[in-house]
């Protein structure tokens, strides 16, 4: 469990990125932080592994204040995946994945075989092991980034817009891969995104921010969709546009589900799909 207790972060230039923020992030679940640009999501994420230290308040991991932990040791125990992968350009895929295990003193050969296993876990062909990041597609690079994040078998995985820079098809593929992985591994995932659909798909708990790092609403996807706290949330999740207010329309071809704009959103499956 990760707990934020009245955390404030003011940068030296005076910007208050996060103001009196409190949140409990349950273990083995995915918590998604979603909100517009500049709302403090990255700042919050990076305070967990002490890439940024708060000005006020405290962050606890399993009831231990991170301020008392060695930042390097803490970071090595937490997976971190970011946009544009952040891979080391001069190291091969396998070497990138093995970075942290090697820093921790794992022998080269066993770090490599573990890296190859992880490549399989994230759906990468073992043939790519000796390529350099620049020789991979954006989607492949992100998979390597996820594999590197998992390399020390961390309890916590921080993901900052990991799929933000890949095209929509690849993004959908990576999202489903992550869901599958999370089903198997049950990490405590903290996931940052701009994309509400991504948040609704991946999150067990969703925190929606408005500008200035203020929490607009938090809850499960169902809670947020069913009862948006205010107009901001409603417009953010698209409920006001009727984008998610679906109804069934009977056509000659069968029953289809239509949104309020009259656009087809899907078909109604025969059996009691609504339950």
């Amino acid at each position, binding site marked *: 469990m990760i707990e934020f207790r009245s955390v404030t972060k003011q940068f030296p230039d005076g910007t208050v990125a996060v103001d009196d923020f409190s949140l409990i992030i349950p273990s083995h679940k995915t918590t998604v932080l979603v909100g517009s640009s500049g709302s403090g999501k990255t700042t919050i994420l990076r305070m967990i592994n002490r890439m940024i230290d708060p000005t006020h308040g405290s962050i606890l991991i399993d009831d231990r204040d991170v301020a008392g932990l060695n930042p390097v040791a803490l970071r090595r125990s937490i997976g971190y995946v970011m946009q544009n992968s952040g891979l080391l350009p001069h190291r091969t895929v396998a070497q990138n994945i093995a970075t942290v295990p090697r820093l921790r003193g794992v022998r080269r050969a066993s770090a490599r075989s573990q890296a190859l296993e992880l490549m399989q876990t994230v759906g990468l062909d073992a043939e790519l092991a000796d390529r350099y990041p*620049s020789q991979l597609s954006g989607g492949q690079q992100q998979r390597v980034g996820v594999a590197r994040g998992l390399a020390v078998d961390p309890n916590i995985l921080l993901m900052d817009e990991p799929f933000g820079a890949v095209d929509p098809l690849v993004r959908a593929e990576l999202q489903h891969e992550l869901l599958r992985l999370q089903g198997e591994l049950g990490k405590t995932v903290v996931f940052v995104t701009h994309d509400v659909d991504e948040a609704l798909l991946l999150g067990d708990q969703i925190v929606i921010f408005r500008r200035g790092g203020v929490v607009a609403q938090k809850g499960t996807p169902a809670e947020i969709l069913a009862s948006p706290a205010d107009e901001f949330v409603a417009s953010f999740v698209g409920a006001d546009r009727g984008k998610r207010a679906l109804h069934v329309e009977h056509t000659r071809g069968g029953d289809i589900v239509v949104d309020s704009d009259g656009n087809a959103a899907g078909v109604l499956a025969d059996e009691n799909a609504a339950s």
Partner: protein
Amino acid sequence: MSSFIAAFGWIFDPAHNVGPDGIPARLGEHMLYTLLTLVIAAAVAVPIGFLIGHTGRGRGLAVQISGGLRSLPTLGLVILLALLLGIGLIGPLIALVVIAIPPLLAGAYAGVESVDRATVDAARAVGMTEWQILWKVEVPIGLPLIVGGLRSAALQAIATWTVAAYIPLGGLGRYLYDALPLRDYPQMLAGAILVIALALVVDGLFAIVQRLVTPRGVSEGRVSEVHDTMRSASGRGAVLAD
């Protein structure tokens, strides 16, 4: 043309290839002085350059000091220090070190700085110490530029040691200064040719080293890197347009 033939005749004359003022001895002295200069200058400039490049602090000051050092008149500095410290190696050595510092410093900080800050940030976020970031990320990726600094410092030192032979010292410059009063033009030209040849060979060797130290993933990646940046830039644009 005939003077060149005379100069080459001088170079290949067996009499000029033995003894304390023979070509191997003078060449050896010149290379030794140059090496000594580079070792001392690098010991001073490279750590400072790494510090500036890694922390991003002190760059303005370094640029100013380097500019100041660069604008010092070379021969004047050599002679001044020789007068202050007496005839011998120490005076010109200090002058040469001062002259070699700016390119080494610039190469060191430019090399470290050239590494994408996002890469450095990622290295830190996965748990590298600052020391590991420097040695495992910034130095290997920036090495071609760092070697580039060494390359220009070496050429500068080779050229300036020729001039510094004015203070009675060894090195290939001796041939110029010894021949001048005697109007021995073949010897002067031979000295000049030897210095130029040394500079060209050293430059060529450094060019090869620079290529060898360019990390594979970095040299091969240029095109697709540009491609990726453009793609993510347009992706961001789309988000803003939403």
